[in-house]
């Protein structure tokens, strides 16, 4: 493999990483503040992609679709919170896992009924077509660069809110000790609805942005959700900063692993088994990395809870 291809794959890895971050940010705060395991968070990502696809088809404009999809994703998230999730906070984790898994199954089915099982394609917006030349003979799709930049900008904005405002301080305090925040007079449920709504919108945002480079299909949130859980565990549950670092790490490992492992195996094996073992090893790589990091830091890179 050439260094050029390596560079491209590293960029793709970072781009995938920022998408993962947008999904993981909401997940880690919801888990951190309310001690609530929301398996259905990936559904928000899928919903974002479908909403983006539908609005783009209806309006003919990706930008208009983005503008419309965000508030609808927010409303969908708040509706789910109101209908299902708020009845689960006081329950144990098993009940939360079962109920939110039920939400995944129902919504995947609902999506199939509304949009069908066939994957939808969303065209890349005209403004961002083509590629940018990194060096002579080496281009990277402009749209992917746009995702990377938008993701980084969103991460920066989120960092400002979480680290530099009083609201952000309350969210961080809630992630480490919610009962204490409540005992000091803060309505933790209202704080949580805010966090939840923003998390749902961020995941929806990731879905809309991913739509032009992925096929939009039922269940597309599930793989992302699993990786997002790996991200929040590595980063430290409740830590936005941890989620950011871990998301970039997981994005890089996942993407580079998939392209490098088969080549690496070629050093020892014939082409066809090399491709197979390489792919198998690559899909294990993030979990191996997670195990390694947790062995070194059992509560993740940036632990948030006391004790």
């Amino acid at each position, binding site marked *: 493999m050439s260094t050029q291809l390596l560079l491209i794959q590293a960029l793709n890895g970072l781009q995938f990483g920022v998408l993962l971050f947008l999904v993981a940010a909401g997940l880690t705060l919801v888990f951190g503040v309310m001690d609530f395991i929301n398996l259905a968070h990936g559904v928000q990502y899928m919903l974002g992609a479908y909403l983006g696809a539908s609005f783009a088809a209806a309006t003919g404009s990706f930008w208009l679709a983005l503008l419309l999809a965000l508030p609808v994703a927010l409303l969908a998230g708040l509706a789910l919170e109101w209908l299902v999730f708020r009845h689960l906070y*006081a329950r144990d984790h098993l009940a939360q896992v079962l109920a939110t898994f039920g939400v995944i199954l129902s919504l995947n089915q609902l999506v199939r009924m509304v949009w069908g099982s066939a994957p939808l394609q969303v065209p890349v917006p005209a403004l961002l077509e083509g590629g940018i030349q990194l060096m002579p003979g080496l281009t990277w799709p402009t749209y992917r660069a746009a995702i990377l930049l938008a993701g980084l900008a969103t991460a920066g904005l989120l960092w400002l809110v979480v680290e530099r405002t*009083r609201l952000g*301080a*309350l969210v*961080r*305090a809630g*992630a*480490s*000790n*919610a*009962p*204490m*925040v*409540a*005992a*000091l*007079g*803060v*309505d*933790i449920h209202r704080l949580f609805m805010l966090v939840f709504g923003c998390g749902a919108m961020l995941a929806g945002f990731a879905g809309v942005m991913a739509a032009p480079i992925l096929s939009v299909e039922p269940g597309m949130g599930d793989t992302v959700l699993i990786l997002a859980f790996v991200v929040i565990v590595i980063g430290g549950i409740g*830590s936005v900063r941890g989620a950011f670092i871990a998301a970039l790490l997981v994005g890089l490992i996942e993407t580079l692993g998939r392209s490098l492992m088969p080549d690496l195996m070629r050093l020892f094996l014939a082409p066809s088994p090399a491709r197979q073992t390489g792919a198998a090893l690559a899909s294990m790589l993030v979990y191996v990395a997670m195990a390694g990091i947790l062995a070194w830091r059992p509560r993740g890179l940036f632990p*948030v*809870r*006391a004790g």
Partner: protein
Amino acid sequence: MLRVDSLAAGYGHSQVLFDVSLGINAGQVVTLMGRNGMGKTTTVRALMGMLPALGGRVLAGRVGWQGASIIGQPAHAIARQGLGLVPEGRQVFPTLTVLENLTATARPGPWTLPRVLALFPRLGERAGNLGARLSGGEQQMLAIGRALLTNPSLLILDEATEGLAPLIRAEIWAVLAQLKAEGLAILLIDKNLGAVMRLSDHLVIIEKGRSVWSGAPEALAAAPEVSQTYLHV
């Protein structure tokens, strides 16, 4: 201002409080005493509405605040009516700076940040440090400052001098005396008998979830058999 009548509460299936009663008038310092595990912290949690969040609940009894019942209200609503908690184990927010710990939950009133920093100059020196980086004594000051900045009319301190060096302990007692002199009502839980006797107007002893004795410090001093039975280990 606070009246607790025949409070009963527990966690899950284990009942911890059976019959706890106590009262505090404006400007008074009342101390809840009793050996380890008798239910002092649980009493505080129950009257602050914190038990549901910790897997417990109130089974019976009344908690009145300024004449109105507050039992069954969520913790944040109770706190906002003027109850400021300095909890057992300090529980400062480890990932917030000292300044953020103080201001994140602050509510307007006579207690302002400069006043709290004047009360505890150490907190000003460490304003940018994370809560987790402070010493035990500094965390205790932070927990008291944080509660004061919610501008309570009753300050509740659960073991605020436990595990501290004698010098820091003395500083905390001096601050509490100053707060009392300014007219703040205080509900105290502390095992430091000498200091408690000097500061308190009234004492309540609980034993296995029941309030079994109450009276003035002088009355306890005059009844050695009471402290022998309920306080000495």
